[in-house]
């Protein structure tokens, strides 16, 4: 078992494996997406309070979950890369960051479009929205730091430290923003008072979240393959790939 795992921890073996996995994850993403959209638009009933506007939830919740989950995964791989000096895991962390930032942005975007008809403003300084904004800043910091360092291994390690410091800080930030929010806003607006959710709604949300998860896996593997090619361009295994034969 462990021999197999270690084998795939080297780019040379992981590259073709990732290539084989991408179509599977893409197909799964499409299937889950189709199921989620069908449930969300055609099966889930109209909400009593929010009318059809609540259907934004199907994309919003999934995007928010993914933005947080990807940050944790990214920090995990970055930490592994830092402590065991494995190139592959650091590359995985780098590959995840842009997708995570995109989901953080989408979560904010759909949140704003949801907030406008429901609360009358595009933006409220709600604890969750504010934390999501800060999460986006953390992603941007990670991406900017790695982009500014030319030497890949140094970029990996510096990014790892930043990601780990970020992971320690995310709960502290969330708690502090929540504390600040309760003092300033009272209970004016709250995302938590969701109407008693129908089973179909929950199922639709789950399907959409799974779709985004599979999408993330597919895209992250695509990006990590490109990063591998870029970084290891002078190695023997890249020269022997069938796709680069002149």
């Amino acid at each position: 078992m462990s021999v197999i795992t270690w084998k795939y921890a080297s780019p040379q073996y992981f590259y073709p494996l990732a290539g084989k996995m991408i179509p599977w994850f893409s197909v799964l993403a499409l299937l889950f997406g189709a199921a989620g959209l069908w449930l969300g638009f055609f099966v889930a009933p109209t909400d009593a309070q929010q009318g059809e506007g609540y259907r934004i939830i199907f994309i919003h919740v999934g995007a928010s979950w993914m933005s947080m989950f990807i940050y944790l995964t990214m920090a995990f791989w970055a930490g592994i890369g830092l402590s065991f000096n494995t190139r592959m895991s650091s590359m995985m962390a780098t590959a995840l960051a842009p997708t995570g930032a995109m989901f953080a942005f989408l979560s904010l975007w759909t949140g704003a479009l949801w907030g406008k008809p429901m609360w009358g403003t595009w933006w409220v300084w709600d604890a969750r929205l504010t934390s999501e904004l800060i999460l986006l800043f953390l992603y941007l910091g990670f991406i900017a730091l790695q982009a500014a360092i030319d030497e890949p291994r140094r970029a990996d390690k510096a990014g790892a430290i930043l990601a780990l410091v970020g992971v320690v800080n995310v709960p502290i930030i969330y708690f502090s923003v929540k504390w600040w929010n309760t003092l300033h806003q009272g209970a004016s607006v709250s995302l938590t008072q969701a109407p008693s959710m129908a089973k179909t709604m929950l199922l639709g949300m789950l399907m959409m979240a799974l779709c985004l998860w599979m999408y993330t896996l597919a895209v992250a593997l695509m990006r990590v393959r490109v990063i591998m090619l870029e970084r290891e361009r002078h190695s023997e295994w890249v020269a022997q790939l069938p796709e680069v034969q002149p």
Partner: protein
Amino acid sequence: MMNAFGVLSAVVRRDLLVALRRKSEVLTSLFFFVIVASLFPLGIGSEMDLLRKIAPGVLWVAALLAAMLSLNRLFANDYADGTLEQMALSPVPLGLLVTGKILAHWFVAGLPLVLIAPMLGLQYDLSPRALMVLVISLLLGTPLLSLIGAIGAALTLGVRGGGVLVSLLTLPLYIPALIFGAGAVEADISGLGAAGHLSLLAALLTLAVFFAPWATTAALKIALE
């Protein structure tokens, strides 16, 4: 070999001496703090009620930006002339030296802000009690800013566009300090009592004292590789 305290005080003394030689740099962040805090009433208007209300936030944001301005100097000069590399090679643990440098940074960039803050608070018509809470919150908060900022400064050492990058990295991490620091003064003004905010700030400081020098040292070792 010197004991830990001896090393610490030697590093602090040395960094303070270097800072004294470059007075203009030290004064820049202090003036920045004063000017930013004085500009706000000009932009917002001289209504005392409003000023009293925004004072905690404005003063704290100004202090935060002023502390950030000086972060680049924390390691950059020593990195450029090779001193940092010698420090890493010396038998003394680098973490200790780093702690000393952060402490010195606070003496130069943090403490002056704490001392001048009451004067700026007067511009915003804060009560003596609120002024005292402001000073205490800054006294607990500015070391926290130096500690967290050191991580960002170490990560961006010798990196392209490090000056702008350091603000992008550290500002999100400063948010809890800002919330509890400004919140303490605000809570005191509104009569809620600042004790809760201040103890949380102290807890954050304790956490940072243990972890920040360690993370900074790791980041410096990467930069020196």
